[in-house]
């Protein structure tokens, strides 16, 4: 008796465990779904990325072009640009024409540069920080070692052009060379001279720049070759000349304004504009709603070259932002602790009493700051540079604007995690551009809607027609069985086979171009089984009495179907159509060979016959193409997530809608 009862308890326990397993399995399915939907939606709306910057996160409203704050400027941009923050590197890239569009703010917008007409210490020091003392001289330039040699060469060579100290102007004229009239050169006490056979007396600075860059090769169409002369030894004239050339470069690439007021107005009225103003004009700029002053991050972490050397397969390439302060507080004493080589950390800091850039000060001396034990103190930027280059393991903060040209390759990039909004309103309303590095998906949404429309245009009549025949006309038997067999078979064919079939039939046999027509017809065949099956069920659920009553009133079969049965079955039929849409909208493999990849909207040239056979990217394809582009383009993955989030939302909407329809259908039947 007792034994039986234990058996019973055991059985009950076993039963509980077994049922527990079922609960776990069911729970797992729900968790997996929530995980997928959650991760797609989360990453669709929020982009988290590890990014590497040459500068450190904090930034200030004004940027100094040296550590001592001799000249500071505030950078302002047109308020249509979706960023509030720039790095010193971004600004340098813009003004040196390395970057010409606003990809950093994910906008399809060209950069317009603004600068001042008049030379000032501010403009000069900014320019110097953009170009350093670099100027790409013409490949064909010939050498001269002294000013007299330069004069002699220019006098003797037809087509020659050179430059001398303006003190030698009179002497140059006596030698028979032409001194060109260039005001900017005059201001810098330099004279541009040309061989007198050329026969010109003035030339714009812009042209001189083009000549010395090597862009201009002849004095005029079919004329004499230009022979530029440059100094091989570095003398004062040469460095002044380089500064003059940089001035010319700026004048070539920037729109020039005369006053702070004009700068603010012009930047405010030009899309994609960036300009700068002296510190005292910030309040003036704040009054204009069309411009905004951006925060500029300009403090970088400079290291002795030894720190970034490769030894035993180890190299310090970048540093996590969180670790930066640890280097200076003594928490990290050796670079090997942060994946670098075995080398002790030697912090180099400015003395607290030094006059320095605010940003530099707040980074070096934050509140509650405790100095590293072995920090070396320096007082000037020059001292910082020499100390850093003498100290293996040396590391310190510096102004990126002034030092990036001097300490090339010694910037230790800082890595930080950034969280930004991903699926924005602009993502839905802007066309993709710059191979998906900027813009959104508006055109792709348009293409998708058109593709679905075309698919339904074919699939709905054929699907419903087929279902009506199966339910209303055919007698059960061989024919229906055969038809059903083929419909089932069709439903089981993988989408890639549909893709190949569409490719052969529409592209090869019919000779259609890739586009929404070929893709739509392919998808139509694919979603046909879904529509037929649901429509069949819906038609079957219409009570027999409806038919008899309609016939009794003298209606023909077709009238009965059209007026009585189809309306009664419509919720079910619509459900099938919506399910078909859900399938077609996410389909990728089937349209991969038939739809094309162009991200332009097929209607961008109006409604015409060609719209059907124009390469058109749709949402699902877009995700796949973005995935393929994602190597080295973090934004592509973010965009893929944002696009997936759109699809998921549509799918969830469809699910909700069909559930409602089915509920209504059931309540009607009851």
């Amino acid at each position: 008796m007792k034994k039986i009862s234990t058996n019973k308890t055991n059985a009950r326990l076993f039963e509980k465990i077994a049922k527990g397993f079922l609960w776990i399995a069911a729970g797992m399915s729900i968790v997996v779904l929530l995980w997928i939907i959650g991760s797609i939606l989360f990453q669709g709306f929020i982009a988290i990325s590890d990014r590497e910057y040459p500068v450190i996160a904090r930034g200030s409203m004004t940027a100094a072009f040296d550590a001592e704050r001799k000249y500071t400027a505030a950078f302002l941009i047109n308020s249509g640009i979706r960023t509030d923050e720039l790095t010193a590197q971004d600004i340098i890239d813009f003004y040196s024409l390395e970057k010409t569009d606003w990809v950093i703010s994910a906008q399809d917008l060209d950069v317009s540069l603004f600068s001042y007409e008049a030379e000032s210490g501010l403009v000069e020091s900014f320019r110097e920080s953009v170009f350093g003392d670099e100027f790409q001289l013409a490949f064909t330039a010939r050498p001269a070692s002294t000013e007299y040699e330069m004069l002699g060469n220019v006098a003797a060579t037809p087509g020659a052009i050179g430059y001398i100290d303006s003190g030698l102007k009179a002497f140059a004229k006596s030698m028979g060379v032409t001194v060109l009239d260039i005001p900017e050169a005059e201001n810098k006490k330099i004279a541009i001279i040309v061989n007198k056979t050329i026969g010109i007396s003035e030339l714009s600075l812009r042209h001189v720049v083009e000549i010395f860059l090597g862009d201009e090769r002849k004095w005029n169409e079919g004329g004499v070759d230009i022979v530029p002369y440059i100094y091989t030894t570095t003398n004062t004239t040469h460095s002044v000349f380089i500064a003059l050339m940089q001035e010319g470069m700026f004048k070539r690439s920037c729109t020039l304004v005369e006053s702070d007021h004009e700068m603010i107005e012009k930047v405010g009225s030009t899309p994609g504009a960036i300009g700068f103003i002296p510190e005292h004009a910030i309040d003036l700029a704040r009054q204009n709603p069309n411009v905004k002053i951006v925060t500029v991050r300009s403090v970088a972490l400079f290291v002795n070259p030894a720190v970034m050397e490769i030894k035993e397969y180890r190299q310090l390439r970048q540093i996590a932002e969180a670790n930066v302060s640890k280097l200076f507080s003594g928490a990290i004493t050796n670079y090997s602790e942060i994946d670098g080589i075995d080398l002790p950390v030697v912090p180099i800091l400015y003395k607290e009493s030094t006059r320095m850039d605010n940003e530099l000060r707040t980074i070096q001396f934050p509140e509650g700051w405790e100095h590293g034990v072995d920090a070396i103190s320096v007082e000037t930027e020059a001292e910082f540079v020499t100390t850093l280059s003498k100290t293996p393991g040396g590391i310190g903060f510096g102004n990126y604007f002034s030092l990036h040209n001097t300490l090339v390759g010694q910037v230790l990039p800082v890595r930080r995690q950034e969280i930004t909004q991903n699926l924005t309103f602009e993502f839905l309303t802007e066309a993709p551009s710059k191979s998906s590095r900027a813009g959104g998906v508006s055109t792709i949404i348009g293409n998708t809607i058109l593709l679905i429309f075309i698919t339904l245009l074919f699939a709905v009549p054929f699907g419903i027609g087929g279902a009506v025949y199966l339910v209303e006309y055919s007698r059960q038997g061989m024919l229906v069985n055969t038809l059903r067999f083929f419909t089932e078979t069709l439903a089981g064919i993988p989408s890639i086979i549909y893709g190949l079939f569409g490719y052969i039939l529409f592209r090869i046999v019919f000779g259609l171009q890739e586009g929404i027509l070929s893709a739509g017809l392919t998808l139509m065949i694919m979603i046909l089984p879904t529509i037929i099956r649901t429509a069949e069920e819906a038609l079957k659920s219409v009570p027999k009495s409806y038919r008899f009553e309609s016939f009794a009133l003298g209606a023909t079969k077709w009238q009965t179907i059209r007026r009585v049965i189809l309306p009664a079955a419509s919720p079910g039929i619509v459900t099938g159509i919506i399910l078909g849409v859900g399938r077609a909208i996410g389909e990728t493999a089937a349209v991969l060979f038939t739809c094309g990849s162009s991200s332009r909207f097929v209607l961008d040239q109006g409604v015409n016959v060609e719209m059907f056979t124009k390469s058109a990217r749709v949402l699902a394809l877009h995700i796949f193409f973005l995935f393929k582009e994602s190597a080295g383009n973090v934004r592509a993955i973010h965009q893929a997530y944002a696009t997936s989030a759109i699809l998921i939302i549509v799918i969830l909407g469809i699910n909700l809608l069909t559930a409602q329809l089915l509920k209504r259908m059931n309540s009607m039947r009851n």
Partner: protein
Amino acid sequence: MKDISSQKSKAIRFREIKEKTIKYALLMCAFTSVLAVIIITMFIFWEGMPLFGSVNPIEFLLNPRWEPSDAVNPSYGILAFIIGSVYVTALALLLGIPIGIACAIFLAEIAKGPVAKVLRRAVEILAGIPSVVYGLFGYQTICIFVRESFGGTGYSVLSAAIVLAIMILPTIINIGEISIRAVPGEYREGSLAVGATHWQTIVRVLLPAARSGIIAGIVLGTGRAIGETMAVLMVAGNSTPIPFLVTDSTRTLTMNIVTDMSYASGLHRVALFTTSIVLFVFIMILNSVIQFLTRKSRMQGA
């Protein structure tokens, strides 16, 4: 009088013609799927068969070397991809079947009210998620999980199998639930009446009775898994050698078609269509099995 009747008969005849026309138009609609299947089959074979003019079918199927762009000695062997497809699918079934059947039993026998509703809705949504989204999810989540827990690059047989297991879950659950529910009530009542517990009833009576339906669901899931392209393409690594470990990357039949299609020409392109014939034959065999099983389960249910 005669006039009226002839007019009437004209109207009737017109009506009859209209009705007949509509009937045949509808018949044509119904035949679209038949036509589609026939044309698809025809084309795939038409484009793929010419390969066997220059490559031995046995060699095509059993040679693991796929180097169609080799200028000197091109080789068209898809054994590695067949193994890849089978490997990935088998592993996916191994992972998906227990959970799938458990969920089906749960839905049919245990869950009531809101719990059943939530799970059923979840399964429906899982079925609706596009494969390219599964691929993206797998690429960014499952591949990283596999890399960190099992080693390798993460783009592997196992990653693909996990993604596929999730993708075929709805098929197995839906069809499983339907076939368990289709088991006549008397079976259940009879079993409970002779003193069997609920669990014993499920395992000894319901599952055997619903067997062919459940198997049909599994076979349908197999078809889905073997034919899946985008999701697998994004997570399986796409390398041509035969995979051995679950952490090896692989290329399946479907991946082979998509990968090379964009640039292949000549015999290489034909070989891709031949690959699709192999895939197609696989699918057709599975389809016939399903049709056979469903008919069997329908007859059992009746």
